C-alpha cells in the first residue's frame, strides 16, 4: 500500500494559538492576585504528575432557541459570569481568542476563601484553540491541573448540548493527594457542574448537568514530582498575608 496523497493547507490554521516560550499578562484585564502566570510555561496533560483523567460534563438545553454557535458566543463573552461564587476569571481584554491569557483567582475546596472573600489559589490559563463551536484552555506550571480543557456545543436529538471536556493530570504530588482522597475530584466536578447549571439558566433552561469520568492513565509520573516547587496554592498562601495587608491599607 502506498502513502496517502499530500494534504492541502489546513483550514484550522487561524484557530490555534502560536507557540509561546512563556506566558505574559500584558493583555489581561486589571485586578485580582496576578501570581503564578507571568513568565510560566504552559504544561498540558502530558506534563503533570498524577493519574490522567478524562472528565466530560454536559448539559442539554431543550427548548432553548440557541444553536451551538450561539451558545459558544455567549459562553465566550460572559465566561466569568457562569463560575461558582468565590472564583474569579480576569479575561483577555480582546476576549477569548487563541493565544490570549487569563488570570484565575480560585476558591479552595468547598468554596472556601480567605478573609475578605480573598481567593486562595491564583493561577491562569492560555486560550490555545477557538472556533465558532468550541474553545480550549491549557494550564501553566503551578496550576492544580496540567490539562487541556475544551468547552463546546453540539446538537443531539434536536437539542443543543453544552459540554466541558477536561483531559487532566494533577500537577504535583500534593494536588494528587487531594484528588486521591476525593476532595480534588469533588471540587473539580462541583465547579463544572455548577458552571453548566448557570449556563443553562442563562438560556432559560433548568438544566441537569451530567458527568462521565474515565481513567486514561492510572500511573503517576514521578519525574514530574518536582512541579511541587511551583505549586500555585502554596505560593498564593505565602502571598495572602501581603494581599490582605494591601487591602487593609487601601481602605485606611
Amino acid at each position, binding site marked *: 500500500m502506498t502513502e496517502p496523497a*499530500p494534504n492541502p493547507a489546513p*483550514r484550522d490554521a487561524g484557530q490555534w494559538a502560536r507557540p509561546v516560550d512563556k506566558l505574559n499578562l500584558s493583555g489581561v484585564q486589571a485586578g485580582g492576585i496576578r501570581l503564578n502566570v507571568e513568565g510560566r510555561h504552559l504544561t498540558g496533560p502530558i506534563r503533570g504528575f498524577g493519574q490522567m483523567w478524562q472528565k466530560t460534563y454536559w448539559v442539554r438545553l431543550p427548548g432553548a432557541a440557541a444553536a451551538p454557535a450561539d451558545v459558544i458566543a455567549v459562553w465566550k463573552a460572559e465566561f466569568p459570569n457562569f463560575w461558582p461564587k468565590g472564583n474569579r476569571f480576569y479575561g483577555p481584554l480582546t476576549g477569548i481568542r487563541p493565544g490570549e491569557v487569563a488570570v484565575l483567582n480560585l476558591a479552595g475546596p468547598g468554596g472556601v476563601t480567605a478573609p475578605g472573600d480573598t481567593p486562595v489559589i491564583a493561577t491562569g490559563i492560555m486560550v490555545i484553540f477557538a472556533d465558532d463551536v468550541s474553545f480550549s484552555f*491549557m494550564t501553566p506550571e503551578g496550576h492544580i491541573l496540567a490539562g487541556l480543557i475544551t468547552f463546546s456545543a453540539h446538537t443531539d436529538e434536536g437539542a443543543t448540548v453544552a459540554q466541558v471536556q477536561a483531559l487532566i493530570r494533577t500537577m504535583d504530588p500534593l494536588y494528587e493527594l487531594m484528588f486521591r482522597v476525593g476532595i480534588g475530584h469533588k471540587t473539580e466536578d462541583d465547579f463544572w457542574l455548577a458552571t453548566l447549571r448557570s449556563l443553562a439558566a442563562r438560556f432559560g433552561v433548568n438544566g441537569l448537568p451530567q458527568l462521565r469520568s474515565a481513567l486514561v492513565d492510572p500511573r503517576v509520573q514521578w519525574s514530574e514530582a518536582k512541579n511541587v516547587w511551583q505549586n500555585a496554592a502554596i505560593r498564593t498562601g505565602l502571598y495572602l498575608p501581603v494581599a490582605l495587608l494591601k487591602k487593609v491599607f487601601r481602605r485606611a
Partner: protein
Amino acid sequence: MATKMLETALRRHGDVAILDLTGEIDGFADEVLNAAYAAAEQTAPRAILLNFKGVDYINSTGIALIVGLLAQARRAGRKLLTCHLGPHYTEIFQITRLADFMSLYPDEASALAQDS
C-alpha cells in the same frame, strides 16, 4: 463546509506499525482512531508511526485523542512516532507539549531510518 471523516489504513514495516491517517481529527474521529490504534497494537509492534500526510484538520478535541493514544503507548512501553505533520501541525504539537514525548519526523523514510 463538509467535513471529511477520518479514515485509517494500517501497514507494517519491520517492527513498526504505520497508521496512515486521512481526513479530519476531531470529536467524530474518536472511535475510528482508537479502533485503528487498537488494531495496530494487536500486531505487537515496537513502535507505532502515525502518518499525518492526509490530515487537513485537527481541533483541540482531536489533540486530546492523540494525547490519549500517547498515554496508551507510554503505558505499554511503546514508542509513538509521527511523520508528515508539516509546519502548522508541528507548531500545534509544540504548543500542546505533545512534541516533548513524541518524535516528529518530516517523512516516513526518515522516521523509519532514525528509529531503526
